[in-house]
């Protein structure tokens, strides 16, 4: 699938000398996943568990006037039916929103089961408890709910007008206004003096995350001692534990959360959901296990959706096209309620609307509103794809205005390498970067000049199949995040991560990580890091995770943070273990610790190669504790909680080449190159895998995916026949390459790569589509660039005989 054109994945100064990090090792996780041995939530066998099914509002906005559950209660297997009012006393608080971005942010109470009013189609209005999943589903059909439908607010501009106010107690549909304008006068002055002033408006459609495994929950109580185990298909067992305990008013130490194998999340499992709390509350009420598995339709309507923003971006530039200011204005759709981190999603992009360009003046403002649609929240990239899209599309518009190529306009504006660490106009410090080589290499990979010539030939020949080339250069901020920075943004938690490294008596290694994998391959990468440091076999390193009883400290997995934060904690814990082992080894060899070197799993005395002791000997000695230095604790174990001092800033350039069939409007991706820099790479195969999936997910926003709602707020793409997630058949071979510019934010020199593909690819494809259509005078196509939209744009421009 991939041409890997550069095999150097570590900087010469990387701390990895064990020969394991940097290898494209097959993933430890895959045999179990591929053979069905891995256990997902729905595979759990829980004898006697009750099942719930949710009665969901078919209306986007309606008063609930009555609920009659008599027919359901008479059905075989139905144990109970609860309305929102029945359960209102079970909640110590509403569903949590952990990111009140402003002090006066409007946050309407979001109860797990709605009381009085449903605010989106899919809002839970009653819950059926039954002896089986089938009986619960049958029971739903027996619950008769009378509604008084209200006018639905679907469009975000309409929402902002407050023509219909959704949450009466808020008095407005505007949740908050947030601004980042360090120097307003400088921005105004730059626009006043601008030779070129580009104003562009773009729409980010709603996207459905659609992981392969939908959500699922099982709450298993121990009624006599008050314990509960909550199994959930979640990215965040640790965060969920705190939030669920608070929301239910349950002592936190009595709650254990386990995420079994999790089949993808893309951000949608970074949340605290109604069904989790409902299962817990009903497990308490019924004194036994209560479970729920999401249907694909529910995954579409009732799991968070992503994007849903309207943006205006303005660029000011001098005569040469050198940027002098960027001003971005955002209108963001929160949906019906604020989910866990939804208000913060625009903020994660707020700092990046100038992209990787050296811009002196900067302004960002955002207004977020409620609509009668499914709540939105973080979806792969969360804020950064939107920011990158705006600046990268606008840079192409600027290139046209200036009269230079899209490559040239970027080269003129890249932050110069000598300016790193770079003080960004938005107030960040970019750790490291060297942007031009990624553009040069990507152009080479797609034969930029050759393709340009081919494009000109096709245009001259009047071909109905036109070529388009699109560049997207990006930088993103990830590795969420320094706790103090999060505090400045009003986030309700820190951004640290925890790791424990434990060398067992037989010199096998146990690693406990607070970073919770859901497809990223943590077990493989983590074992490679530790094996490289300790000089052991990666197969001798076991990685434990995703269970708050085994791994009590953690902040989980999102925001491309696992490696740069959780991996760094692990690296530091391993260093700590080595330090202790060194002291013991020195004691064993009657040498000074400073005189020892550690290489290949063996401590030896510098200059006396015959005096050595293997790590295995130290491990066993630490276990028996027969002869340890005075005052030293037995065993080799260390725990580190790492709170990074800065984000990491991966970057790169992607180029898409598309063919547009002008007769049908069909867009086909014909070539794709991605040159990314995520610093030192632990396992380049995993890096490539993240890029493959991420790129396709971003291409999908450009070409296929859209959560289409009608004017009544009904989702018209609630299954995988109507919601177009691309399959392998739609993918092409991608040309991947990389450069290696280590981060200075952590000792491993690593950056994140989980979201980069999604961040970069959408604007590359859309720039290519618009490039192909430019002879028609077309400057934008609403995403996704469906054949009908493209064809209609050509017809509106007066081109193409019907």
């Amino acid at each position: 699938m991939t041409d890997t054109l550069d095999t150097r994945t570590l900087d010469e100064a990387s701390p990895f000398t064990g020969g394991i990090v940097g290898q494209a090792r097959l993933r430890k996780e895959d045999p179990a996943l591929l053979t069905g041995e891995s256990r997902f939530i729905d595979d759990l066998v829980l004898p006697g568990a009750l099942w719930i099914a949710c009665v969901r509002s078919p209306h986007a906005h309606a008063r609930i006037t009555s609920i009659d559950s008599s027919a359901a209660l008479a059905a075989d297997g139905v144990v109970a039916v609860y309305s929102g009012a029945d359960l209102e006393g079970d909640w110590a608080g509403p569903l949590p929103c952990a990111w009140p971005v402003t002090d006066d942010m409007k946050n309407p109470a979001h109860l797990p089961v709605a009381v009085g009013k449903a605010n989106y189609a899919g809002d839970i209005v009653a819950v059926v408890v039954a002896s089986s999943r089938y009986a619960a589903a049958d029971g739903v059909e027996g619950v008769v709910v009378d509604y008084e439908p209200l006018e639905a607010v679907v469009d975000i501009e309409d929402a902002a007008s407050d023509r219909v106010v959704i949450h009466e107690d808020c008095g407005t549909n505007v949740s908050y206004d947030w601004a980042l304008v360090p120097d307003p006068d400088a921005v105004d002055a730059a626009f006043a003096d601008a030779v070129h002033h580009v104003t562009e408006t773009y729409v980010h459609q709603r996207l459905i995350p659609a992981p392969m495994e939908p959500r699922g929950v099982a709450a298993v109580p121990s009624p006599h001692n008050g314990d509960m185990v909550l199994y959930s298909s979640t990215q965040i067992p640790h965060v969920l534990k705190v939030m669920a305990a608070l929301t239910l008013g349950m002592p936190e130490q009595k709650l254990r959360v386990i995420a079994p194998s999790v089949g993808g999340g893309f951000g949608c499992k970074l949340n605290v959901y109604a069904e989790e709390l409902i299962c817990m509350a009903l497990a308490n009420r019924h004194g036994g296990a209560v479970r729920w598995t999401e249907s694909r339709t529910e995954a579409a309507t009732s799991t968070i959706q992503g994007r849903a923003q309207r943006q205006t971006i303005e660029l000011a530039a001098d005569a040469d096209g050198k940027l002098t200011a960027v001003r971005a204005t955002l209108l963001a759709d929160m949906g019906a309620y604020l989910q866990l981190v939804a208000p913060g999603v625009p903020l994660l992009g707020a700092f990046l609307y100038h992209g990787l360009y050296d811009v002196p003046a900067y302004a960002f403002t955002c207004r977020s509103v409620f609509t009668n649609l499914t709540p939105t929240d973080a979806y792969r990239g969360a804020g950064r794809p939107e920011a990158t899209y705006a600046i990268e599309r606008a840079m192409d518009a600027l290139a046209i205005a200036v009269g230079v190529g899209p490559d040239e306009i970027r080269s003129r504006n890249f932050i110069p390498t000598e300016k790193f660490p770079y003080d960004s106009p938005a107030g960040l410090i970019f750790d490291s970067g060297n942007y031009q080589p990624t553009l040069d290499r990507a152009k080479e990979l797609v034969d930029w000049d050759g393709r340009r010539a081919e494009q000109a030939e096709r245009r001259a020949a009047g071909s109905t199949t036109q070529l388009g080339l699109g560049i997207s250069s990006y930088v993103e901020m990830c590795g969420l995040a320094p706790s103090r920075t999060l505090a400045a943004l009003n986030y309700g938690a820190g951004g640290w991560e925890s790791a424990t490294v434990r060398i067992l008596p037989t010199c096998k290694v146990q690693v406990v990580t607070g970073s919770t994998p859901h497809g990223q391959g943590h077990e493989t990468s983590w074992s490679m890091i530790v094996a490289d440091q300790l000089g052991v076999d990666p197969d001798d390193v076991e990685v434990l995770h995703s269970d708050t009883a085994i791994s009590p400290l953690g902040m989980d997995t999102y925001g491309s943070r696992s490696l740069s934060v959780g991996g760094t904690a692990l690296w530091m814990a391993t260093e700590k273990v080595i330090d202790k082992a060194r002291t013991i080894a020195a004691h064993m060899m009657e040498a000074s610790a400073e005189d020892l070197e550690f290489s290949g799993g063996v401590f030896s005395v510098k200059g006396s190669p015959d005096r050595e002791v293997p790590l295995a000997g130290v491990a066993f000695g630490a276990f028996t504790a027969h002869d340890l230095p005075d005052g030293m604790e037995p065993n080799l174990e260390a725990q580190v909680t790492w709170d990074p001092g800065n984000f990491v800033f991966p970057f790169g350039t992607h180029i898409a080449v598309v063919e547009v069939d002008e007769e049908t409007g069909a867009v086909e991706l014909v070539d794709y190159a991605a040159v990314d820099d995520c610093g030192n790479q632990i396992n380049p195969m995993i890096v490539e895998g993240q890029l493959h999936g991420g790129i396709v997910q971003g291409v999908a926003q450009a070409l296929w995916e859209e959560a289409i709602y009608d004017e009544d707020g009904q989702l018209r793409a609630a299954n995988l026949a109507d919601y177009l997630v691309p399959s392998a058949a739609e993918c092409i071979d991608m040309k991947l390459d990389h450069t290696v510019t280590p981060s200075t934010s952590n000792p491993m020199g690593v950056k994140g790569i989980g979201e980069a593909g999604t961040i970069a690819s959408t604007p590359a494809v859309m720039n290519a589509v618009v490039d192909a259509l430019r002879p028609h005078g077309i400057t934008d196509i609403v995403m996704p660039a469906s054949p009908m939209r493209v064809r209609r744009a050509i017809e509106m421009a007066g081109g193409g005989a019907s």
Partner: protein
Amino acid sequence: MIPAAVDYLRVESAEAAVAALGEHGDEAKLLAGGQSLIPLMRLRLATPTVLVDVGRATGLSGISVGGDTVSIGALTTHSSLEHSAELAAACPLLAHVASVVGDPAVRHRGTLGGSLAHADPASDLPAAVLALGGTLVVSGPGGSREIAATDFFTGFLESDLAADEVLTEVRVPVSTGGWSYQKFNRRAQDWAIVGAMVAEGGAGVALVNMASTPIRASSVEAALAGGASAADAAAGAADSTEPPTDNQADGPYRQHLARVLTRRALEAAGA
């Protein structure tokens, strides 16, 4: 995604299926490959109380070529059609069309008879049999009868098949003249937004998803018979059609696609 309770009855022959359908009336649905019925049941859009599973009945699958006719058992899977050398030689259009239905999993389970009986205007195979001028053989309480494909499709998901009849065989003429199927969709696995099918150098032209049933583009056939060029004939492909509107296409766009795809199909078929 959780279907309602349903009784399941497996039958070993077409005759037994006819008897079971007669006994259970409208409450029963015939199950073959299940690629259309099961998803509808999981969404509770179909709620039969009895499923009559004909999937393992004997004598209802296989491809045989005799003289000018290809006879195909109703239970023959799309995959079997796709990979049959005999069919590829005798009726390459049908073999090709079978190869672009859904995805490999669908093609291994789905059957020709099931696809025709489901009568989905967006499906590929009904239009292929229509373009080829095929004949459908059905068994009922009174014995068997033959229905011309042109008379079989009566409405959206409706056919001339009675509730107690079972489709047993499909016959198409041996057809090795120029052919093409232009299927336009967003993803390989999807139904056609519009499809244009040309058989026998233009003698048969059929359209997918341009009406409530698969339709013959008779004005195109007539224009070609009258000596019109492919481009001129295709210009009339959408005449008097009333295509549906959905997320992917409205009526005027479907009509535009029908013209473009029909022209391409005719050109590819050498018409």
